[in-house]
């Protein structure tokens, strides 16, 4: 158990819980959107922390890279065993990159909707906006 990693996971948990709290309990539409974004950030932090490895390399095959080889000589996949057993886990980083874009996209749509709803109702309170509905 790496204390740094545990601390990072707990921070992510706090972010998620804060986001949930803002999303469920707050009345302001912008605060709800910020809460939704915080949840996404918390999940991203969980993924990044999965990739953490104490003392690991950054996942770039720099000095090990087979730079002079031409593409036609790759008849089989080469193995970079030494690099692979020391580098940090790389898959979660790629997933985080995807999720960041997803978060940005949903954020933009929600902000646009918030602008339109504000122009229609002249209030930011969700309570007043959704009044008279079940």
């Amino acid at each position, binding site marked *: 158990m790496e204390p740094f990693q545990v601390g990072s996971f707990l921070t992510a948990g706090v972010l*998620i819980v804060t986001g*949930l709290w803002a*999303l469920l309990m707050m009345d302001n*539409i912008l605060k*709800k*959107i910020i809460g*939704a*974004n915080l*949840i*996404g950030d*918390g*999940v991203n932090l*969980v*993924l990044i922390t*999965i990739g953490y490895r104490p003392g690991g390399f950054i996942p770039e095959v720099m000095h090990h890279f087979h730079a002079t080889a031409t593409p036609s000589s790759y008849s089989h996949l080469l193995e970079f065993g030494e690099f*692979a*057993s020391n580098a940090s886990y790389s*898959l*979660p980083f790629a*997933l985080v990159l*995807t*999720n960041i874009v*997803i978060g940005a*996209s*949903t954020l933009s*749509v*929600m902000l646009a*909707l*918030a602008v*339109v*709803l504000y122009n*229609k*109702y002249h209030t930011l309170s969700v309570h007043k*906006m*959704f009044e008279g*509905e*079940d």
Partner: protein
Amino acid sequence: MLNNSTLIPLMVVLPLIMAILVNFLHQKDKSVKFISIVSLIVFVFIPVVTLYGVHLFSGHLRTGSFPEVSKILIPEVYMGIVYSYGAVQKILMVVLTILTGFSVLAVINKKMISGVYMAMIFISLAASSAIILADDIFNFFVFTEILVVAQAALVIAVQEAKSFKAAFKYMIFGTISGASILLGIALLLGSYGLLNITDLSHAIQAGGALTPIGLVAVALLTLGWLYESGLFPFHIIKSNIYENARPEISALLQVQSKFVLVAMALILFRVFSGYALLKSVILGFAIFTVVIGSVMALQQVELRKLLSFVAVSQAGLVAVGFGLGTPFGIAAGIFHAINDVLSMAILFFIASFVYDKFKTTKLDELGEGLQVVPLVGFVMLLATLAISGVPPFNSYQSEWRLIQASAQAGVPELGILVILLSVATFVAIIKAFYMIFMKPGSKVEVNKEVRGNLTKAIIVILILACLLIGLFPNMVYDPIYNFVVSLGV
């Protein structure tokens, strides 16, 4: 191991290319129309000719997993993304593309055609196809997010305050469910190191009992599933979406939601097949959805709202099949999903016709419609019979199989629930039928310009399809049953 099948990615990629093109050609209505119709023919054609098999994206084959270092519990894994295409996927894809085609034709026929609107329909088609085909849990997540945004866009396109609010709610809860699915994926990735669903299920079986982390992952993924398919805690949000979109688009949205329900439930069952509590939880939420959905449908006095709640309660019935957990029950559930989307689509198309013809869907104001449009009234009567499980039609076959499956699984009480739901659905829709077509004293003006020949043709074709499946159920049911047995859940 199944062979690589070349045409599988085109089912997702071609709609995406066409979406880009029609968005690019916005405001050039003629070319948008031409491209849409041509591409729809291609979309229907591709699932029919594609061979069963898997598709390995980027050509990365199955490789050894070096278990001593990577600590993966199985000897070989897929490194790239994999799509699998079997009998169930084929049937779902054909139904999905045909119904999408009908919706697009209805949109074109109403001269509401615009590039961006068509682009959203194509993107949602691509996303739901990807969800049906995906054998990779993260790819599944990405395309569910696309589907949420695209469905919200289709609702927003109505440009009314109510639709903005419905879309906003849908997006907010969509972020919660998306985050919970992703957190579940992260927990599975951390503790099993895999993303491919087939590999993941093998690894979890090899690892014995689920870890505490795995249990939380089940809960989170189930929460996401409940949202994506509009089951119990989220039924109001989903029915809001159906009710605020244009009716011919709602016909499309309910197909997508129900197929996402089927696809994601299959994923849950394959990954966590050894975990018995999952079935009871799903069954519980399904029963809640059925009861609440049908009760709320009975209260409504507006045609689109009523149909939305009927759609939600029927989704609950599909989930009941999954909740039984036996191969027989799951096959019956999938079969019911296919039957149900056909008859719900007829009802939504009729709602669209009524809305065009009479400019309202409030049941109090409508009446005496049978003299104006006898054919539509007759088809609506048949569709009501079809959706509530009356013998010559298709839903009878699936509901009968659901009742049998529940008796086999040792819970015959569920059979009574299914029958009660049929009765409630019948009462709710027959009330709507009476108030639209029979009730004396209409308060609305008939729009004589609306002929609706295309809508009439669509609903007649769909009711014939319902009848066909009802007469020859084994044509559809047997491949599904064999597929479910081959999954070994």
